[in-house]
């Protein structure tokens, strides 16, 4: 167990250690610095890859091989693996608690994968390479930490840790309006963090581990210290930041989070709302998205890749990992709100993308639109009272999660593709492009693959998530699905239009035409890797679902269980009647005889 924690800690802190090592490099040794950075990210990627690769011999004599075998992630297991908590700040019962499950694993892999590519793409950064590399590696530590932390406080710390490197990376290495973009990013994110902090303390204060049954306490991987405390007789509540314990508390009968706090709403409701806003800022959803176009446009290419590919995913991850399991009541009551924001983001982002003249800004708005699918998929709580078949919600959640991975690949790819062009001609005006196909055919082919992945073309990664989300949304609300499906048309519109304006056409008439040289090997490898990933996940989505679906499904099953119990409680107390009970019963009758032939 501890071995797993150590392994995950190495994964998380290796980049930071790399940053520390880089500090002792002379700043003019740019080549060495770049290669070290790439090497560190590569090692981290290989380590995370170790989680999913097939095993070595378990009974090996070599202890290293033994360890490497032990740290594998068992696919198909819904629960947390390598979860282990060590007391950190015991005054607050804060643990150093890492663990991985099917929800976080793909995101961890995505992070380490995109970090390698972004590090490789960082060759285009020529200013202050040493500082850049140090910040870049610190950023990676923060991102990995967010996805691996299972203690709310730790999660929050990692969440914030990313902020500072990102601020500097945009502010120093960004475009002309970088200062504005950087501070805007910083302020927006900090607002979200502060809201999250309020919710964290709200939940912390309301929580009491001792209310959990003992087996639930064991399943929460409480640290030994807290476990002992929870067994000792005391009238003082034992607060916790343990995400698993909080989720169990949130879903137990007579949950302490159902206490009303303000405006007649419960702790769960408020916490959900606050957390949701905090996460939606990161996602970002309309109307708290305006930091994104600026940040994306100004950030240097690799940072845009990271920003779109990973940072935005943290919002979605937070919603599925924290919001819903811990505050199911808030989630249930606010499902419409989440869906509304999702759908608005989808439409709004697509329309805004269509109006852009700046290539990068267009891609940025497309991110808003695509992440809207994620929000919609997460929000489409299709469990109606009386109808406890959660498979559509599973589909939606899985779709949303898949969409996050897919968007991670396609958006990182798009930003890279834009960056390649920008590095050559130093402008991003869509109206001044055209005819790139003739000048850079290989580049164009790869770009088109990536853009079509974003468009949601079947066979590429963007399709699976989108279609699942729309299916799931349909079972929640038909109107939402209609609007959601119409976004597919808009997406096709702006992406095809962009392709036509940039790549197709007779000739390039913009400035610096002479600089349009073919892709270098490094650039080719980055773009090709992303394209291949887009194809692989498009034709073999099981590669992700295999790991992800059991955990997502378990989350949903737990929530469905919660729903059922809540509805029964309400029904028992006679507050709500369930007309749909009747309805589904009738349909059941209508079709029940269909089983007859099989007798």
């Amino acid at each position, binding site marked *: 167990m501890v071995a797993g924690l150590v392994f995950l800690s190495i994964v998380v802190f290796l980049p930071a250690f790399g940053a520390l090592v880089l500090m002792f490099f002379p700043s003019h040794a740019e080549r060495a610095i770049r290669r070290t950075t790439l090497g560190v990210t590569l090692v981290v990627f290989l380590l995370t890859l170790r989680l999913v690769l097939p095993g070595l011999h378990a009974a090996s004599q070599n202890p290293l091989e033994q360890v490497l075998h032990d740290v594998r992630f068992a696919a198909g297991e819904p629960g947390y693996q390598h979860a282990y908590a060590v007391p950190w700040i015991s005054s607050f019962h804060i643990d150093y608690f890492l663990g991985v499950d099917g929800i976080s694993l793909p995101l961890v892999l995505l992070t380490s994968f995109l970090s390698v590519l972004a590090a490789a793409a960082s060759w285009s950064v020529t200013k202050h390479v040493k500082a850049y590399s140090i910040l870049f590696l610190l950023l990676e530590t923060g991102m990995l930490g967010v996805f691996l932390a299972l203690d709310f406080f730790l999660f929050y710390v990692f969440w914030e840790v990313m902020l500072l490197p990102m601020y500097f990376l945009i502010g120093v290495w960004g475009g002309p309006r970088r200062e504005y973009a950087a501070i805007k990013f910083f302020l927006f994110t900090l607002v979200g963090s502060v809201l999250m902090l309020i919710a964290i303390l709200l939940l912390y204060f309301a929580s009491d581990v001792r209310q959990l049954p003992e087996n639930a306490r064991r399943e929460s991987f409480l640290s030994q210290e807290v476990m002992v405390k929870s067994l000792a007789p005391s009238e003082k509540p034992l607060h916790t930041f343990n995400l698993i314990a909080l989720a169990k508390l949130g879903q137990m009968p007579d949950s302490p989070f159902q206490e009303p706090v303000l405006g007649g709403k419960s702790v769960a409701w408020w916490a959900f709302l606050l957390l949701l806003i905090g996460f939606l800022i990161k996602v970002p959803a309309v109307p708290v998205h305006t930091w994104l176009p600026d940040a994306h446009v100004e950030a240097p290419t690799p940072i845009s890749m990271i920003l779109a590919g990973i940072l935005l995913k943290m919002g979605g991850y937070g919603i599925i990992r924290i919001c819903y399991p811990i505050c199911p009541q808030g989630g249930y009551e606010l499902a419409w709100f989440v869906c509304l924001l999702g759908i608005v983001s989808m439409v709004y982002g697509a329309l805004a993308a269509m109006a852009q003249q700046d290539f990068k800004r267009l891609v940025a708005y497309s991110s808003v639109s695509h992440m809207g699918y994620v929000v919609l998929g997460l929000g489409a709580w299709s469990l109606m009272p009386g109808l406890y078949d959660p498979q559509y919600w599973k589909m939606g959640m899985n779709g949303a999660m898949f969409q996050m991975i897919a968007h991670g690949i396609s958006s990182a790819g798009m930003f890279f593709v834009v960056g390649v062009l920008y590095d050559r001609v130093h402008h991003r005006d869509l109206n001044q492009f055209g005819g790139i196909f003739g000048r850079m055919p290989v580049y164009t082919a790869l770009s088109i693959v990536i853009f079509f992945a974003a468009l949601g073309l079947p066979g590429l990664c963007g399709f699976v998530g989108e279609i699942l989300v729309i299916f799931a949304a349909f079972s929640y609300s038909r109107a939402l699905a209609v609007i959601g499906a119409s976004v597919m048309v*808009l997406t096709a519109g702006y992406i095809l239009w962009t392709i036509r304006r940039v790549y197709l056409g007779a000739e390039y008439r913009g400035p610096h035409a002479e600089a349009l040289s073919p892709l270098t090997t490094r650039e080719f490898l980055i773009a090709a890797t992303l394209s291949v990933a887009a194809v692989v996940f498009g034709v073999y989505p099981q590669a992700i679902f295999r790991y992800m679906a059991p955990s997502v499904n378990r989350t949903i099953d737990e929530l469905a269980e919660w729903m059922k119990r809540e509805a029964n409680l309400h029904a028992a107390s006679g507050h709500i009647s369930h007309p749909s009970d009747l309805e589904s019963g009738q349909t059941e009758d209508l079709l029940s005889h269909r089983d007859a032939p099989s007798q």
Partner: protein
Amino acid sequence: MSSLSLVPQLLLIAWMLPLASFVFIFLTGSFLDRRGRASGFIATAAIAGSFLLSVVAAALWFGYYPLDSNHQASSHPIRPLSGDWYTLAEFGSIKLALGYYIDALTLAMYVMVSFIATLIHIYSFGYMHEELHEVNDPQVILGDGTTLRRPGRFARFFQYLSLFGFSMLGLVIANNLLMTFVFWELVGICSYFLIGFYVERSSATSAGNKAFIVNRVGDFGMVLGLAALLTSCGTLHFDHYQTTNGAHYAGLFFYAKAIQHPASELEPAEGSRSEDSQSNPETPPVTLSGPKGLTYGLLVLAGLALLCGCLGKSAQFPLHVWLPDAMEGPTPVSALIHAATMVAAGVYLVGRIYPLLTPEVLIVVAVIGTITLFMAATIALTATDIKKVLAYSTISQLGYMMLGLGTGGWVAGLFHLFTHAFFKALLFLGSGSVIHACGTNEMPQMGGLLRKMPWTAITMLIGCLAIAGAGIPLWAGFSGYHSKDAILAQVYLFHTTNRFLGWIYYLALVSAALTAFYMFRLWFLTFIGQPRNEHIFGHAHESPKSMTVPLVVLAFFAVVAGWSVPGTHWSLSALLEQARVTPLLENSQVPLFGNVVIPHEHESHEAQIHQLVSLEAFTAGILGFAIAVVFYGARWLDPAKVCQRFFGLYRFLLNKWYFDELYSRLFVRPVTWVASVAAWIDRAVIDWTVDHAAVAVRSLAHLDDWLDRILVDGAVNRLAAAIYGMGEWFRQWQTGRIRNYILWIVVGLVSLFILGSIYFGLGMHLVVGAS
């Protein structure tokens, strides 16, 4: 059974061959052969292999289920082969997979698609030969006034063709709607690439965009239809399927039947194909999946939504606008994708999901088919671009198919799909041959080409005859004769059962006449008479073997496709008859604008209907042909031309001119007026709507952008400014004068005191009140 179990595997290989070819060409590309000829061979070999495998598979199938026996009564009723190859994702009982659904229709489509594709691959060797070298594209003028010179893209062309072959075959074999949708999109994207094959031409790329986006509009409906079915039935499979944990679940057809028949009627003895679990011991018991919320109303909605996709793909009114523009692509592409196969996919899908379609939906199909049919035919009358004529003709013929399906003629509609594939591919290839020879699409620039390119001319004449439905009534004819008659018979039957929709039949008849007219107009203008442009005529030549051989082969099939194999009952229509399915509530009255009845197809085979319709259609065809001859063939009514060539007979021709005027007033002008109105509607209303919808969306997009900058972002910035302003205001309190500061002590003390006494007093009050 063993021979049947080979069929899916054969088809799988047949399906994968083009994909392998695509991947191979994509990866090796120019390494293989700088000019790309090798790629062409690989692609052609792959698709030819597919064709052979399909033929073998079909032979196995029909060996097992011969066409001339009555399977419904026999010991082994026909069961479509269905199964999954590959699972994309699975959520409980919901399974999203790629798999096969094989019946006679699938096999026929497989053979037809791979056959025509093979021919077109061969044809393309000739047609696209200039892509082997550096190409000088005269249509693209660069900034410095020169025309574009670019490397040839022979390999790329075949790469796309291979991808298309793969996608189209996948679409045909799909065993669930999601798979259909996947390949639906993929053929769309192939179409996009091929329309925009000349990426340097702005018109080509914009036509590609238009095609894809208009198709996406249709797909928008399709996705909703999928979602509706999935959320109500919990599946998108047509037939039973099995999840990975071994449970069996019922498919969509099964649910549709459950809707159709009240519970008591649905006995196992009915022996329907999709749920005869008793008669077939191999089929395990089936579990129903999904929340079972399928209702009749939802089925209607789902059917209409799916229909949207079909309308887009098959270029039916009002989503037909993309197809004429799609002629920007190379002609073999137009023949393969935009005539024979891809655009027929919509019709195919309607045929495939026929058991899910309710009469309400079928009425819509029929009406839209009719509108499309007539509208496109009238527009084709005036077009001068040879490919545009054919494009409108394609739309019109697709309308026929839709009409046939919509009126209950499942076999008739799909029969026409096949025959049309042959003769329309033939016509397009022929036109390609002409364009190849002349270097222009404009018919007024042609004329008299019969002498120069006899093979092309003759084969195209056969095509024209086929599309016009030429034949000897009540006996035999070109392929189009059989299929069109079948449709018209069904429409006639439909009009007898639903009187208020009688106009459908008459419009269909008129369109048959128009079809004959505009096709022969095309042929006459192109091949007969004197050359109108000597320069073009001078350079014209017969096309190479690689182009004429496919023409001849296709011409052969355009003639015989409707016939049955001599001495047997084996024919295309019998083959389709084997796979025939019935729509929901066939032959029962459905309350909708009166009572709608979708007649049973067999009734249209009755002699009296058949004879009557056959004669009427023949008359209409002859009429159209005759007018074409008068105007363009013999040119009896073209004084202006005659006047120019024989100056001495001027007055005589002048009289002819008056005659022409008369005719023009009596006949031509109304027709041209209708045609121009139709064209105007097409251009000004529908195209306008489409274009302006785009403009509107873009304006909306700009508005959205503006809102984002001004309102949303503006609010943020304004809030920031307000906070900053507050800070500045606070700073002003800091006057720097110590006496002011001390005054603040007093003010602070006094205000705190007031506040404190309020609170304290209130507290006191509470205490007193409590005690």
